[in-house]
């Protein structure tokens, strides 16, 4: 008998799957109501155990069952049929027997010459196709098998925990690729093909704006004002200024007009507003740059939001369990062996870890929780309080330091510019002034590098109930630090720089973000070098220990999230920033991969990979993306764009671009008045957001109540199962007693007979 179906023979499985296909067909036609589901919880009547009692090996009965199953499968759709076939736990030979008879002439299965239904698409067909198409995008993207071999090596050596960091990196890469494609296609390409007239003042100087002569279309007029180094010096890569400052990389380069092709008139005139009454707008192709800028950024953020929320809910759904876990030991015994790990030393390490964890769990479960004395509890509370004070105190101190440093650098810059403008001469030392711009990014990155070490040290002296609590506290402290730093910086940029009267403040903010991103990357490299490579050399040569440093997954993932927040903040001001982020992530992948392989060892503590992945995607969505989109929305809504550069010059806010366009549409076509009113109520009125948030909260409350109800039902059902077990034992005992009595009765009668 084939070992595949021992005890649960083929016939039983065929019957079971016949029932399932029947249910699937019925479900496809209508949803069954709660009333129709069987109330009885007796396993024997639910239909599973009944099947396994069929121990007939009669081949005729089996072939009858197979025919029934095949006829059911034929009535399902192609995708359902394939899904059913794949989930049947039968051997391939049995499945092929069932599937061969499925090839019908009028039901065209795609031949191998055509596009095959890939497993990714089958996964999509599982759910309702309309609303979950973004899942298809994500799954197909993952099936591109980027870095397949490298990921396999990391997983084989370090297990699922470290692998989740690299998978998170890959996800971020896809987000940035999407952003880059969208902005590249709609913003960068049109502007690069139609360069604006080379008459605009340099971004970092404060002279009064030059009046644009109306005939300056393609005249290569050089500005009369000093610009700084126009040739490419190496410092540009670090500061983003200089040669790059007047390029398609920054906001200031983009024209505020409608780009036209094949236009006799001087179509690309920089006129205020730029879109009223251009005759040649109707000739040739016209592309309104301000509108394109506004809508591209808005749509890109909106789609990113949808994809993020979707992946967060999917990850949450996979890892959330309604019931609290009470069977820790059983889960550890059955689910902890990581089949991906293939390296011999890692396998030995994993066995050792599992043994240790089982011992600890056993000790936890069997010991009586000795009540700690009041004094011990007080001491613990004191230590925790001290650690938290140290951490929050240092965070606040660093935030204040960044605030004052930014203020100081701003004042220095203003002084320098004023000095230059007054004298009318060349700047004192352009390289030095450019290098001074790096002070703030370097300071912030240094804080990001050193302070988590302090938090770790504070965490060592504390005592926690479990390693997962320790992990969560460490993540919370790191998060607090990064959130406070970013909020101080955003306040500085949007509050101070935007209103400081700088010539082209958006380009400047874009350059700042570029610098921050780059410094973050350089300091991560430094941290990898110092923290992992040198530490390993040190501990091997000097300390003579063979313990390599452990890869700190949580800290590295938070670094990635921080970098991604900067990229999202900067898309509005620097449309090419996603490209920079892509290059950074690619380099980071290879550097981290080689560093991990050379220098680190697998983590000893248990790491709940699926739960942590959910936490990280949530962190990416909530503080990170939400913060970035709030900042961008605030910029678009309330801050006045600079008058002399960018696609929104001359408007009071960036949102006005959309409003003007809608009004123009309404003027052109009176039937579209509804669009204008809809626009004014939906987009401009914040009440809409409040209503949406309210609906969201109601849905969350409802779902949480449902979960609470399900927990109660589960507890009741468990008790019922226990009672059924008791019933079974009682009945078996009764049966045995009756049999025993029956056996004794004739024996006694025969004794009586023989006695007589």
């Amino acid at each position, binding site marked *: 008998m084939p070992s595949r179906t021992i005890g649960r023979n083929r016939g039983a499985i065929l019957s079971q799957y016949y029932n399932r296909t029947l249910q699937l067909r019925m479900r496809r036609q209508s949803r069954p109501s709660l009333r129709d589901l069987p109330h009885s919880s007796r396993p024997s009547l639910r239909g599973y155990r009944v099947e396994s009692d069929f121990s007939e090996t009669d081949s005729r009965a089996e072939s009858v069952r197979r025919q029934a199953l095949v006829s059911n499968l034929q009535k399902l759709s192609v995708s359902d049929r394939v899904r059913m076939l794949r989930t049947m736990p039968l051997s391939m030979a049995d499945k092929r027997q069932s599937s061969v008879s499925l090839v019908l002439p009028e039901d065209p299965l795609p031949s191998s010459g055509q596009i095959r239904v890939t497993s990714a698409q089958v996964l999509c067909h599982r759910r309702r196709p309309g609303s979950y198409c973004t899942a298809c995008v994500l799954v197909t993207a993952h099936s591109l098998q980027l870095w397949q071999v490298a990921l396999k090596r990391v997983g084989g050596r370090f297990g699922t925990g470290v692998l989740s960091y690299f998978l998170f990196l890959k996800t971020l890469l896809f987000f940035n690729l999407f952003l880059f494609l969208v902005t590249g296609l709609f913003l960068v390409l049109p502007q690069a093909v139609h360069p604006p007239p080379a008459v605009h003042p340099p971004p970092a100087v404060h002279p009064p704006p030059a009046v644009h002569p109306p005939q300056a279309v393609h005249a290569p007029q050089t500005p009369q004002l000093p610009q700084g180094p126009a040739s490419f010096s190496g410092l540009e890569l670090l500061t983003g200024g200089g040669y790059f400052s007047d390029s398609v990389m920054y906001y200031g380069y983009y024209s505020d007009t409608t780009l036209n092709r094949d236009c006799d008139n001087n179509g690309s005139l920089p006129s205020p507003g730029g879109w009223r009454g251009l005759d040649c707008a109707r000739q040739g192709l016209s592309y309104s740059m301000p509108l394109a800028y506004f809508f591209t950024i808005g749509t890109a953020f909106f789609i990113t939001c949808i994809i993020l929320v979707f992946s967060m809910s999917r990850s949450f759904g996979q*890892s959330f369990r309604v019931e609290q876990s009470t*069977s*820790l030991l059983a889960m550890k015994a059955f689910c902890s*062996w990581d089949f991906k790990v293939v390296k011999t030393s890692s396998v030995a390490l994993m066995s050792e870890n599992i*043994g240790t964890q*089982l011992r600890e769990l056993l000790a936890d479960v069997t010991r009586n929780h000795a009540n700690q004395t009041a004094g011990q509890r007080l001491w613990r509370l004191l230590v925790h309080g001290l650690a938290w004070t140290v951490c929050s105190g240092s965070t606040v101190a660093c935030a204040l330091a960044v605030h004052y440093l930014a203020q100081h650098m701003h004042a220095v810059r203003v002084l320098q510019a004023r000095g230059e403008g007054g004298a009318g001469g060349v700047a004192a030392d352009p390289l030095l002034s450019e290098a001074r711009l790096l002070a703030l990014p370097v300071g912030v990155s240094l804080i990001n590098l050193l302070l988590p070490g302090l938090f770790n040290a504070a965490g060592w002296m504390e005592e926690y109930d479990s390693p997962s609590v320790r992990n969560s506290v460490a993540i919370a402290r790191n998060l607090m630090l990064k959130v406070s730093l970013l909020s101080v910086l955003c306040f500085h940029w949007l509050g101070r720089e935007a209103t400081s009267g700088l010539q082209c403040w958006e380009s400047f903010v874009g350059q700042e973000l570029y610098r921050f991103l780059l410094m973050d990357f350089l300091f991560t490299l430094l941290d990898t070098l110092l923290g992992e490579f040198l530490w390993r050399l040190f501990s091997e040569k000097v300390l003579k220990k063979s313990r390599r440093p452990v890869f700190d997954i949580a800290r590295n993932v938070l670094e990635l999230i921080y970098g991604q927040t900067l990229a999202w903040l900067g898309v509005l001001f620097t449309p090419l920033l996603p490209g920079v982020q892509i290059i950074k992530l690619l380099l980071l992948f290879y550097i981290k991969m080689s560093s991990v392989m050379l220098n680190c060892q697998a983590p000893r503590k248990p790491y709940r990979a699926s739960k942590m992945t959910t936490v990280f995607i949530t962190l990416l969505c909530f503080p990170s993306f939400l913060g970035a989109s709030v900042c961008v929305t605030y910029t678009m809504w309330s801050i006045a764009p600079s008058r002399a550069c960018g696609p929104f010059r001359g408007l009071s806010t960036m949102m006005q671009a959309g409003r003007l366009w809608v009004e123009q549409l309404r003027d052109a076509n009176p039937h579209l008045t509804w669009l204008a009113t809809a626009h004014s109520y939906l987009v401009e009125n914040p009440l809409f957001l409040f209503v949406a948030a309210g609906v969201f909260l109601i849905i969350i409350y409802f779902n949480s109540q449902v979960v609470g109800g399900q927990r109660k039902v589960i507890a009741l059902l468990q008790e019922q199962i226990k009672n059924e077990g008791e019933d079974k034992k009682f009945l078996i005992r009764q049966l045995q007693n009756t049999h025993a009595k029956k056996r004794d009765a004739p024996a006694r009668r025969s004794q009586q007979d023989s006695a007589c």
Partner: protein
Amino acid sequence: MGNKQTIFSAQQLDAYQDCTYFTRKEILRLFSRYRDLAPQLVPLDYTHQPDVKLPYELIGSMPELKDNPFRQRIAEVFSEDGEGNMTLEDFLDMFSVLSEMAPRDLKAYYAFKIYDFNNDDFICKLDLVKTLNKLTRNELTEDEVRMVCEKVMDEADMDNDGRLSLEDFQHVIVRAPEFLSTFHIRI
């Protein structure tokens, strides 16, 4: 993308694609992995469905399996004859169930079979003891193993019959979201 390969007939490839979670390219790649284990035994032409079985020793020497303490049980569960000697279809089946796309119920079914050492459709105490010894490479003492087994039975056995059925096992698995990511071999 033409039909250039001559190893399988079109119908065979379609059937394999329908029955496993692999794409065409992956099936061909898996075939070359299978063939690399014993090039002289495995023919290059599978259109006439040759009856080729690779012995367990070759399967167990694959880099993905050679250090896995459960490799013998895995091979036994997925092989036709129950001894660990696998045909190509068993091979494809094995890696399909252990791949990322397989659903949790399918994986739980086969995991249950793997941990059921005596093939009686229940995980009894002896099966548990063997599982734990394989997991920890016999590092735990006998007392500790016995206590762990008792606790596991207490936690997981719902109807108190002293052994775990498939439903009890699935109940444990449902509450462990790590199962999907750990019961996975990349090939």
